[in-house]
């Protein structure tokens, strides 16, 4: 279990992480979601003791990261692709990592197999593609067979096949009982992999809830209805106590109702509907709404853009 207790990080005038407290549940994939610049990477670096918190602390099973003996056997992390020296082979990169934490050398070949890099194990990392670099980073994270895995934006720059592979891997790691903490700025990606969701914006906690709850709460839908007999439809809807509002184009937006029920209502009264469709707000929209206030530079950039164009 990882606990963040009132964690803050200040860089000069900017508060990158602002009084962040949450617990990463054990044995689940927890999505760590936030717009770019929300403080996700900084938080992950503080979990690993790479960056020193301005205040607050992170405890991993009750210990600070730097108090863990052989930390790679407790926590594995993928922070950025290609955090490796170009001139070394993939095998030797994993070998020094293994040596540093008394991990048996056979694990090197095992994790290279797991991530599908066996054939290029002796090749220099400098010649690796972004996707191969990402796989090597994941191999390094898995090396110590840790109970906790941290992945910072693991699908960045990957092709669809690689993305699918990472999704499957994260789920299978959680199924083995491991804790997986994965950051992303894409809600759609998280909806597919995460069991639990932690959303931050401008370094502050915005949401901490199970994925299912987030979906239920945010996937609002309505039925869009267009007719040339709006008066009659209004009567029909009112008569059946269906809640609705009128869209800008005059279309009806009925909520809490199935399209089928509207179709029956209309046909019962001989109304002609020119359009009847179910509209679903995407989770991406819900996420953007939630973080709208927290997106840094958002409005400011748009305004200065505008200013510049006017001057030109």
């Amino acid at each position, binding site marked *: 279990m990882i606990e963040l207790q009132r964690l803050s990080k200040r860089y000069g005038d900017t508060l990158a992480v602002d009084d962040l407290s949450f617990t990463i549940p054990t044995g689940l994939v927890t999505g760590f979601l936030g717009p770019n610049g929300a403080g996700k990477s900084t938080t992950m*670096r503080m979990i*690993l003791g*790479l960056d020193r918190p301005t205040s607050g602390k992170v405890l991993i099973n009750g*210990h600070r990261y730097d108090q863990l003996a052989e930390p790679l056997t*407790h926590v594995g992390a993928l922070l950025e692709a290609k955090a490796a020296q170009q*001139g070394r082979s993939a095998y030797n990169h994993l070998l*020094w990592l293994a040596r*540093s934490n008394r991990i048996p050398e056979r694990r090197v070949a095992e994790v290279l197999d797991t991530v599908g890099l066996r054939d290029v194990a002796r090749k220099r990392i400098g010649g690796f593609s972004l996707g191969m670099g990402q796989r090597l980073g994941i191999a390094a994270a898995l090396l110590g067979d840790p109970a906790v895995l941290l992945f910072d934006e693991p699908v960045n720059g990957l092709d669809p096949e690689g993305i699918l592979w990472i999704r499957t891997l994260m789920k299978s790691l959680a199924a083995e009982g491991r804790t997986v903490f994965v950051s992303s700025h894409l809600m759609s990606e998280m909806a597919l992999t995460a069991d639990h969701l932690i959303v931050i914006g401008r370094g502050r906690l915005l949401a901490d809830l199970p994925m299912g709850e987030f979906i239920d709460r945010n996937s609002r839908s309505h039925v869009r209805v267009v007719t040339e007999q709006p008066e009659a439809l209004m009567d029909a809807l009112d008569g059946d106590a269906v809640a609705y509002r009128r869209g800008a184009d005059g279309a009806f937006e009925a909520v809490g109702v199935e399209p089928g029920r509207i179709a029956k209502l209309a046909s019962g009264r001989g109304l002609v509907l020119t359009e009847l469709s179910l509209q679903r707000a995407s989770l991406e929209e819900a996420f953007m709404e939630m973080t709208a206030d927290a997106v840094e530079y958002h409005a400011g950039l748009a305004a200065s853009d505008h200013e510049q164009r006017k001057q030109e």
Partner: protein
Amino acid sequence: MTYATLAPTIRPSIISRFAPVINAEWTKLRTLRSPGAMLIAAYVATVGGGALLTFFINKNFSSMPTDAPFEPVRSAFGGLVLGQLAMVVLGVTMIGGEYASGMIRATLAAVPERGLLLAAKAVVLTAVTLVAGLVIAFSTFFVGQAMLGKHGVSIGDPNVLRAVLGGAFYLTLIALFSLGVTTMLRRQTLALGILMPFFFLVSGILQAIPGVTKATQFLPDQAGQKFLQIHHQSKDAFGPWTGALITVAWVALALLGAWLTVRRRDA
């Protein structure tokens, strides 16, 4: 298998924590091409440079200035000004390569005890450069004395063995100094950009400026090179042992600065 509960973490003793870190640093060093290449470059430059210099000294010995006693060991180590640059590169890349590639984060995640990490790097660098330094120093000495012919000295002559061993330690100290400076700067290119010209040019140029000459003897390279002399020269501000101590102090200062930097900075 379930990962829900973990045994509490008990820290093993310092020795048992240190050994794997040294092992890892040694593995890092031997799995790159550049460190080996740098040791060979140091050998070729130091031995070759010295051979060339002593060859010409022997040829023109009669026209050498006679106001100061001739330094046969110091002359044989004439290639050191070039050879030490390879040691600078070795010391800089020992940690600079990790900052440049971003691998330092993987290193610090694997070894969160930063003092231990720096110590392991220093130990491995010392071991490697000392072995290489001994090979280079004795080769340089014997080749140089062969070139000097009857003007040369024997290893058994007064102060000669001390001076040759000094050549080996000098190379190690320069590598360690470079490791310390690079760790403080945390930038490989910046460290190379400062250390290479300093050791190759600046120190020598400063030495040639009248009035500054005395002070430049306290610079890490010039102080250390005093150890290569077997005679006392009239311009010397201090003897070989003081010189060695001054260079060791420079190295200690650089490593102390490195430790203070690495223990509190964000990676």
